[in-house]
């Protein structure tokens, strides 16, 4: 009995989670940048990082939920573009901001629903489904304006992505933080979240436990679609235009953020706080390298190397 007690205490010893190791890397990067650039350590700069993290962050929230549920969605970048093009196209006809938001969310739901139904009803690998819909959504986006950038003037709408609240806090960051909080609540506190983890870890067992795995998976894709639509809103608003390339490559950033934050592509693990740190890490790197005026070729090398470095650091926790 004594043994058991002793063991129990040992069993509780501190384990570094992925989120923590990413946090550690983030701090290290921040420290290095602070030494290299006098402009790095300022409130203003961190608010700038915050603002530009918003789009990736919003995408990563949805992506984390899908990944935890054992899926993946690489069509999100195209959803961002699609939202931008459609909003820009209807903006002249309707300047109303709420209507814009509703339209964007409707697009997000529709895209998420399409992905989700294909994945669940037809039982197709999510990677292939979203690879296909990525092309389809992008094609549809270009068809709306025949591949032409479409600007608009709508100051109310621009405030979503560009404005501030509480002094100098960017609205876009506030939106992202809200999404993180809601996402964390959903994953951690609700039965729905518990079910997402269960489905992602072992779909067969979850099905036999009476969890409607199709419904859960479908919901994760819809949520992801909505998050992508919000990212599209922020991006369109920041750009004050529907731009043909606004969502290019966004999916990889979102996945990288989620995975850096501890989500496993095998499903069943991941956390919102981790994702937040992962996204901040990615954006801090870009910001620091920009401040230093590093040429974009070296930036590619540095970003790639840091990404690999972060996963290496993370792997040490598995070894110890």
């Amino acid at each position: 009995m004594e043994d058991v007690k002793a063991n129990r205490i040992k069993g509780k010893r501190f384990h570094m989670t992925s989120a923590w190791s990413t946090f550690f890397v983030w701090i290290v990067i921040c420290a290095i940048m602070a030494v290299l650039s006098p402009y790095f350590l300022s409130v203003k700069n961190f608010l700038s990082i915050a603002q530009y993290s918003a789009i990736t962050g919003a995408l990563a929230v949805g992506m984390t939920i899908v990944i935890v549920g054992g899926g993946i969605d690489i069509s999100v970048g195209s959803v961002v573009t699609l939202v931008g093009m459609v909003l820009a196209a209807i903006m002249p006809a309707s300047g109303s901001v709420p209507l814009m938001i509703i339209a964007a969310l409707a697009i997000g739901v529709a895209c998420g629903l399409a992905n989700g139904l294909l994945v669940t009803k037809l039982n197709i690998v999510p990677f292939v489904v979203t690879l296909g819909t990525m092309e389809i959504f992008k094609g549809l986006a270009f068809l709306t304006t025949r591949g032409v950038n479409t600007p608009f003037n709508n100051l109310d709408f621009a405030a979503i992505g560009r404005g501030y609240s509480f002094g100098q806090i960017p609205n876009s960051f506030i939106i992202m933080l809200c999404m993180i909080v809601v996402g964390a609540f959903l994953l951690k506190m609700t039965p729905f979240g518990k079910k997402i983890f269960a489905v992602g870890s072992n779909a067969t067992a979850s099905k036999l436990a009476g969890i409607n795995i199709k419904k859960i998976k479908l919901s994760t894709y819809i949520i992801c679609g909505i998050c992508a639509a919000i990212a599209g809103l922020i991006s369109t608003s920041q750009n004050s235009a529907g731009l043909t390339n606004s969502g290019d490559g966004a999916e990889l950033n979102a996945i990288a953020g989620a995975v850096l934050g501890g989500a496993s592509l095998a499903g069943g693990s991941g956390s919102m706080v981790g994702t937040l740190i992962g996204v901040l890490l990615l954006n801090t790197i870009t910001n620091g390298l920009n401040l230093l005026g590093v040429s974009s070729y070296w930036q590619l090398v540095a970003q790639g190397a840091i990404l690999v470095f972060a996963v290496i650091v993370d792997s040490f926790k598995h070894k110890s």
Partner: protein
Amino acid sequence: GCSGSTEPAGSEDASAQSSASAETVGSESSGAASAAGNYPRGNGDDTLKIGFACMDMSNTFHATVAKYFEQECANRGIECMVLDDKFDGTTATENCQLICDSDCDVYVSVMGFMVGDTLSDICKEAGVLAIGMDQPIPDFPFFGADNVTAGYSAGEALAEAAIEKWGENPTIDLYIGLESLAGAEINDARMHEGMLEGIRSKVEVPDEIYVQCDVTNNDSQVAMRWVEDTINAHPEAEHILIGGFVDDSGQGAEAVIEKLGYQDKALIGTVDGSTLAINNFKNPDTAWVCSAALLPEMYGYYMLETLEPYLKGETDELPDSWNVPPVVITKDDYEQVLTDSIIYDDYQVG
């Protein structure tokens, strides 16, 4: 205003420069086919067919060229095949082959800067006339925007705006070049030989204050980050000039300037002259002051005006090089300039 559209010196200068360079390309390698007009003239059947390889259909500029090109062909009863090179040399090569295989009389492409020699080879082998649009294809005629002129005149206009705003001989503290390094030679011509020289012809821009930013894929978001981070790294800068390779960059830069409240400290000039610029010009308070319009709507018209008679055998003269004349648009004159330059009835400014 900073009108530069009719500035004679710069544009003539640069256009002379570019036609010279196109001529050199022509004469240096085409040995046997040196005489103007001595180009292949199609396969002899009655209908004319043009293969147009659009550089990138997801890019506004090129998509616009393609759209009006098709329209112009239709107006003239010419068959037109449009393919998408996807800004990718490998796809461009394949598309070139496909166009030659499809019995087109002419192959038009922008990808000469990437795979020019190969495009030239394929067309020669197939006996198809190639036209290097915006970028020369060796041994074949050149047509298109004159990037040096466009960049130069935009640079001049930007510098003039600076003089108007900050007085004679203003000290420029920072020049941010939002460039597309993937555009290689186009970027060099437009942003260095063009824009930077244009600015330097009026105000001083030492190398130390020039920050080159690569806005990959001309992404407005990326431009935003570069501008904001660069300005943050130069907090002492009072007079900032920002040059954009295309209007997408200008759009991003303008957003940041508004956010930072830097309207008094910064001026933006770009090359493109698209709706993004026009839309900003409508607002009197923007820092974005000028853009050199490349008139993608007019590409088809200007090209076919010269090309059609040659293909139809009405003339034996095909010049080695001809251009779309770029115009600079500013807040004050964009409407007038564009309506004057674009001949289509359905065209509406903005």
